[in-house]
């Protein structure tokens, strides 16, 4: 008798709890919207070329996408607070470029003014400084963020071209090569760095007051202020962090290529925006998750990889890259089921 009562009560509780639990599950599902698409691409890839699912090829995909992925991470932070940073692609070139210019000997087109050990700190400092200038202009002086960062994109690219004389820096100090060339447990360090950064990003955005304040600011900045969030301070942090991450991304790329070209990062910002939107980050702020952003980049680069394995000629890759963005957008619209904004 008493047993039946208990059973009935617990069942009742279960029913009550069912609705919210399902809601959470659904909300979480949105983060995984691209996972089916990624699986489909993997299957197609395997059919096109059995090399696709081999460890070396997958690591290769991860390493190729690692630099862009870090840029996407930075842009995701900026987009969630309803801002934009176009200058990331130029920062990605300028930061390692300046470091190389100062540390590389004359034979590698540099000045050789600083010892090689300074290269990494200089790179990161340049990135943070660019972020701080952006923040100063946008937040302190209230200028239009889109145009400010567009201006910065052009200025920074010009600076790198001016400093390098349009040439490529090589003979980079070993500290700059470390991220792009070393392997831990058979996987390049740049892949580890990317994965760790995204893991940190997921935790920060989902489980810290700072992370949640980004969503609050992007959703309704007045309400965020009313809740006591120091909105200006958060925005500063986001823009400066984004600059720093762009510099890190540049460091990874120049490490992998063992050189800094004056066009490093040129045009990458479009891929970055595309990956973010495909990954479910709203350009209107306040929406999207770090995991979603990661799946966005992954999907883009997997499709690219499948095409390369399928033997598409290199001359056509440019046209295809654009189409891939559109196709990936369509796929994410279908699997995500929601109107993108």
């Amino acid at each position, binding site marked *: 008798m008493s047993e039946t009562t208990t059973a009935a009560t617990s069942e009742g509780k279960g029913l009550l709890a069912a*609705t*919210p639990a399902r*809601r*959470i599950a659904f*909300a979480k599902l949105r983060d995984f919207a691209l996972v089916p698409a990624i699986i489909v691409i993997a299957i197609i890839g395997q059919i096109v070329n059995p090399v696709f699912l081999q460890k070396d090829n997958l690591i290769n995909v991860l390493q190729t996408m690692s630099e862009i992925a870090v840029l996407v991470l930075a842009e995701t932070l900026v987009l969630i607070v309803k801002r934009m940073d176009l200058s990331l692609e130029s920062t990605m070139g300028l930061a390692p470029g300046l470091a190389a210019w100062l540390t590389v000997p004359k034979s590698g087109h540099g000045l050789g003014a600083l010892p090689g050990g300074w290269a990494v700190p200089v790179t990161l400092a340049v990135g943070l400084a660019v972020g701080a200038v952006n923040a100063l202009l946008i937040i302190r002086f209230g200028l239009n963020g889109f145009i400010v960062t567009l201006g910065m994109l052009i200025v920074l690219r010009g600076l790198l071209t001016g400093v390098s004389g349009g040439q490529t820096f090589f003979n980079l100090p070993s500290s700059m090569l470390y991220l792009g060339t070393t392997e831990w447990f058979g996987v390049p360090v740049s892949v580890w760095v990317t994965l760790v950064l995204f893991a940190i990003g997921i*935790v920060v955005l*989902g*489980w*810290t*007051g700072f992370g*949640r*304040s980004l*969503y*609050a600011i*992007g*959703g*309704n900045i*007045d*309400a*965020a202020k*009313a*809740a*006591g*969030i120091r909105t200006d301070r958060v925005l500063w942090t986001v823009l400066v962090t984004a600059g720093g991450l762009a510099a890190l991304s540049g460091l990874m790329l120049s490490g992998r290529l063992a050189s800094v070209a004056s066009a490093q990062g040129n045009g990458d910002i479009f891929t970055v925006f595309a990956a973010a939107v495909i990954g479910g980050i709203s350009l209107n702020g*306040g*929406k999207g998750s770090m995991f979603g952003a990661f799946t966005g980049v992954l999907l883009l680069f997997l499709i690219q990889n499948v095409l390369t394995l399928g033997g598409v000629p290199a001359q056509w890759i440019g046209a295809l890259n654009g189409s891939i963005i559109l196709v990936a957008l369509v796929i994410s619209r279908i699997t995500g089921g929601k109107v993108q904004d």
Partner: protein
Amino acid sequence: MSKADESIMSTVVPVAQATGITKRYGSTVALRAAHITVEPGQTHALVGRNGAGKSTLVSVLTGLQAPDEGEIAFGGAPAPRLADRDAWRRQVVCVYQKSTIIAQLTVAENLFLNRHARSRGLIAWRTLRRQAADLLAAWSVDVTADTVAAELSVEQRQFVEIARALSFGARFVILDEPTAQLDGAAISRLFERIRELQQQGVTFLFISHHLEEIYEICDTVTVFRDAQHILTAPVAELPRADLVAAMTGEAASAERGVHPRSIEQSAEEAGGKPALSVSGLSGPSAGIGGDTGYDDVSLTVRAGEIVGLAGAASSGRTEVAETVVGLRAAGSGEVLIAGRRVRPGSVPAALAAGVGFVPQDRHHQGYVPGMSVADNGTLTVPDRLGRSGFLSHRRRDTLAATQIENLAVKTSGPDQPVSGLSGGNQQKVVMARALANDPRLLVLINPTAGVDVRSKEFLLDKVEQTAAAGTGVLIASDELDDLRVCDRVLVMFAGRIVAEMERGWHDHALVAAMEGMEADV
């Protein structure tokens, strides 16, 4: 009130007291030696026309702005420093008209934004959700903590905001026009909730343009006019006419003059064709894009007739009106304007057929805030401003000047941006635009929402004049004052027309029909 009561009241420490408050913005005096005293456990109304100083008083009372002169005290103790936001929030909170709920976040997160529950430095979502559920239960707000705020109704959002306000410890809540966006049923639920909270020891300062609401829910009323305190009195002892007089500074006529007009005669002038004839109109069913549908709606508006389309917010009245003006297309059925069939779902076609239109929400669809009064007023009639696409500024300003005079818009001139006008005058500009093409059919959706008493009377007078000149008018609203000017009122409920009432209906019967109940009069 007896002598004994009075002596008891005077010994009670007021929840909030402001004395001798003066606040200037440049040369404008927003408050001049104003004062207000709110007794505990009361619901205190604060009324005044737009620009009377209510908003300034609220921002001073909530510590958003420091007064130039004067003192504020809560429960007898002086107010905290302006920088100490948390201390203010423990004393007083304001639920503003503009929601401070973040639509993208869940209810739970909105409630505990920036004060999340934590364990080991990270947010403890489980604890946070439990706290939110407890809080919602404690104030009996019927919302699930995990719901994304975007899915809440306006009403639910308000309840969530009130619960959040109370969770800071404040027991004095300012409600700034809480009923402006609610329909009748939701308003009565809100009032029910206010009464419950009052019994739990919460004091309210209630700001509203709707005088009936004040008589229904409030104990005491304070009137502000021209930046000054005019009177404070128990609501029960203040007749409606005196209250309006205090607000406007002049004795208001209790009844508006009815304009003489003959519907039959005007109908003949228009060639016998009705201004609007809708037959068998069915719209998309509920759920598509969050809109409510309507089903098999037929109605006729004769020339010179004012027809009301009443109903609760989800009854489909707004959707029918929007279909008539081409903002949406019907699934089936026909709309004839002055006997002519109009291409469905096309606003230009409707305008060309002679429709003038005041949309539901002036902020969203009514006007372009940055544009001038003249530009907004003439937005629908570019062809009258010049030929082949070029606009003559001189003609525009002449036309706008006529409009400004015609509708008594209080503005510094046709070049003033509409965003700088008060709510009532903004609505007049929207009305002016609707009248700009001398419409045969005037469609008004909630034409007096968020408009002060005088502007409201003026706008409704204008509607009657327009009808007297032979225009057919359709008013979709749940505001009894709007419907009072109608020759007949069609009542919609759940997407269907359920009743028709001739002029002279009883409020009681109309409200009952709008709520889907049988009228028992």
